[in-house]
């Protein structure tokens, strides 16, 4: 089991740390079971992080929408900003 967390396996630090604690706990019988559980845990963490980022962006979009003019598209706003800078109007 020790071989699994050796440096030449190139596992990310987070997974290696998690594997160590799982191996030490003695709850898992095989290497593959430990790796599977560990990867599932990482995937779950990533999914939660993605949800948080999406929620944050949705909140920011709602707040930003209060200011942005309704009659203009995103493309038109960028275009107008370019023109404003070119002509200083």
């Amino acid at each position: 089991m020790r071989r699994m967390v050796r440096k030449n396996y190139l596992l990310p630090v987070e997974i290696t740390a998690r594997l160590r604690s799982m191996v030490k706990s003695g709850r898992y019988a095989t290497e593959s079971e430990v790796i599977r559980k560990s990867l599932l845990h990482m995937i779950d963490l990533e999914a939660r992080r993605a949800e948080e980022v999406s929620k944050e962006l949705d909140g920011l979009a709602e707040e930003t929408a209060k200011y942005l003019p309704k009659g203009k598209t995103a493309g038109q706003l960028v275009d107008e900003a370019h023109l404003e800078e070119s002509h200083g109007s």
Partner: protein
Amino acid sequence: MRYYFDASALVKRFKLEKGQETVRKIVHEASLGAHEIHSIYWARAEFYAAMRRGNVPQELAARNLRALGRIILFNPVTSEIVEDALNLIYELNLHTADAVHLATCTNLACEAILTDDEHMVGESVKKHLEKHAVKLINLKENP
């Protein structure tokens, strides 16, 4: 999939209008690791200018950029990109900013470009993108 967002696609994430859901979906999938989203560092300045044009407070514009920066890779402006853009300004009769976006997109070998900019969806740009096997996603058409 490897996407490229121009400045208008970045602004679209915060504009509740046609095409926003496409941007939202791709950004969410990228945060799950399903895609890579690239843009150019210069687009951050364009984004800021558009936010100011829309009277969005600076603090909110900065928060928006920080949140986008957690998902989107803002690539540096290199001399190679500028050289490619110089050719596109003449070849396709493009504005400087549009030429820089197009040059960056092909330089980074992106597979699709998202835009809400009418200058980026002309026939000559479409042909150029086809030549480089880049799919054009026109957000005005609510894909």
